[in-house]
């Protein structure tokens, strides 16, 4: 077995192993270290001799490393003595408990005591089974930075005494929202890279979708989990049409809709139906907007009135300047650019989007549609200066040039 085979088994097993070991040792940091030691050993020994049961091998080795680590900690000697007599030590993963343990692992990785960057790194590492190198590549960060982030995160969790358990009922909904926002951050990093020279990083977006599917399977009665899954599937469905052969972005209105992934759209619509059982939350509403686009044969045939209504609802539920800006774009399509410009001007005057390229981008579009070309050029040029993604910047400069012609 080669490295890729070890990685494949690890991706499938890592969350279950770390979860079971955390339950077994009561120490999340130790469990994660032991699991990492096991996979490092597998990388060395499997190419020489493949184990008959790779998953069992990983679990047994990780458990041995955990016991070694506990044994080394003299202060925990009593606890080790306790563990050594615990009959659970030699048992396999308990299938009835492992689902709750994997879920608990997600809640710990996304715990509010951690910085947002740490939550993302830890979730990808312990739940997604990604290596520090893979996480660093995904977020265009140096490997030592990611490693330090994970080490610090584990220390923070230990220092804060975060228990390894499902949050109490009263906090469950809010903490679940925290997990969803981490998954959403990972997805958006893949679907609109905030920096770098590529617009899309589908492998990063894929990790988010995979983890959201896991969460949906473990929490089937939570509509917003299905809402986020629907949003991810419907957005990812457009990936094949979103970039040209040279990697340049293609705007929604210019996309070849035949390239959309219709099985992903079907999965997204199915998830949206599950999200709609008790009225839509913020993710469900965004998914409904994505669904309105996904079911339209063209920009002209899109139900823009419905999209305006959905953005209004989203603005009431989760007010944000970006939602307001998107509402303006929908109003421009449904009613006309003049009404939309009034919304954007009000937004800019309120100073709620400082330093973002989004407001001048939309303002430029609206001004161009109103025939106010010199003003539009100035807006596009300002947007290009503010935009950190090289591919998007090129599009903005092209738009500015088109207005001059």
């Amino acid at each position, binding site marked *: 077995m080669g490295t890729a085979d070890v990685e*494949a088994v690890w991706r499938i097993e890592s969350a279950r192993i770390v979860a079971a070991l955390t339950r077994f040792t009561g120490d999340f940091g130790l469990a994660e270290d032991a699991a990492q030691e096991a996979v490092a050993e597998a990388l060395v020994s499997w190419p020489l001799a493949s184990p008959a049961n790779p998953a069992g091998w990983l679990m047994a080795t990780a458990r041995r490393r955990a016991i070694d680590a506990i044994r080394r900690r003299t202060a925990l000697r009593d606890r080790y003595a306790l563990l050594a007599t615990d009959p659970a030590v030699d048992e396999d993963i308990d299938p009835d408990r492992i689902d709750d343990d994997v879920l608990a692992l997600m809640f710990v990785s996304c715990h509010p005591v951690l910085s947002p960057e740490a939550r993302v790194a830890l979730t990808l590492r312990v739940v997604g089974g990604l290596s520090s190198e893979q996480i660093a590549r995904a977020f265009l960060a140096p490997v030592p930075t990611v490693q330090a982030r994970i080490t610090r995160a584990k220390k923070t969790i230990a220092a804060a005494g975060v228990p390894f358990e499902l949050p109490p009922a009263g906090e469950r909904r809010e903490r679940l929202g925290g997990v969803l926002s981490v998954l959403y951050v990972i997805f958006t990093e893949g679907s609109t890279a905030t920096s770098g020279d590529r617009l899309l990083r589908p492998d990063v977006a894929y990790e988010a979708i995979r983890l959201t599917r896991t969460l949906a399977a473990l929490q089937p009665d939570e509509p917003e989990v299905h809402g986020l899954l629907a949003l991810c599937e419907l957005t990812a469905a457009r990936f094949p049409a979103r970039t040209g052969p040279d990697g340049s972005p293609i705007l929604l209105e210019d996309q070849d809709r035949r390239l959309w992934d219709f099985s992903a759209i079907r999965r997204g619509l199915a998830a949206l139906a599950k999200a709609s059982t008790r009225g839509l939350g913020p993710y469900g509403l965004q998914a409904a907007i994505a669904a309105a686009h996904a079911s339209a044969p063209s920009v002209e045939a899109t139900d823009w009135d419905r999209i305006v209504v959905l953005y209004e609802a989203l603005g009431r539920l989760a007010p944000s300047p970006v939602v307001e800006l998107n509402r303006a774009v929908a109003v421009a399509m449904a009613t006309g650019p003049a009404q939309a410009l009034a919304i954007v001007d009000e937004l800019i005057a309120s100073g709620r989007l400082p330093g973002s390229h989004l407001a001048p981008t939309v303002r430029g579009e609206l001004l161009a549609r109103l025939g106010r070309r010199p003003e539009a050029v100035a807006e596009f040029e300002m947007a290009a200066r503010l935009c950190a993604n090289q591919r998007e910047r090129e599009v903005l400069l092209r738009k500015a040039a088109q207005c001059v012609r």
Partner: protein
Amino acid sequence: MPKYMLIMRGTDESNAAMMASIEEGIARTRLFIEEMMKAGVLLGAEGLDDPGQGVVVDFSGEAPVVTDGPYGETKELFGGFFLLDVASKQEAVEWAKRVPATPGSKIEIRRVPGEDEVPQDSTVQP
């Protein structure tokens, strides 16, 4: 991301063995499907009915010819599939090893190209 199809290929013998303990087979398959769902990799799964109930449309001649029954003299019969969304072929293989398949049967693993890999028109790309 690459998708892979796990194509179940049974033989007359393995299909007969499967039918002999069908209840247990269904229960184990259900558990396996649940496991794949919790891992976030399952996109679809279907099992096919008895090949004897099938119909074959043959395009060898000028007009399609329809015959009842299974396809040709094949030793291995396509019995169903799992469609997976995984990071690598190795991961698809790893899942295939875990399928509660009947002894004697085989699983063929084939990659499913993405939308962006399928040629959209006849224009020759430079």
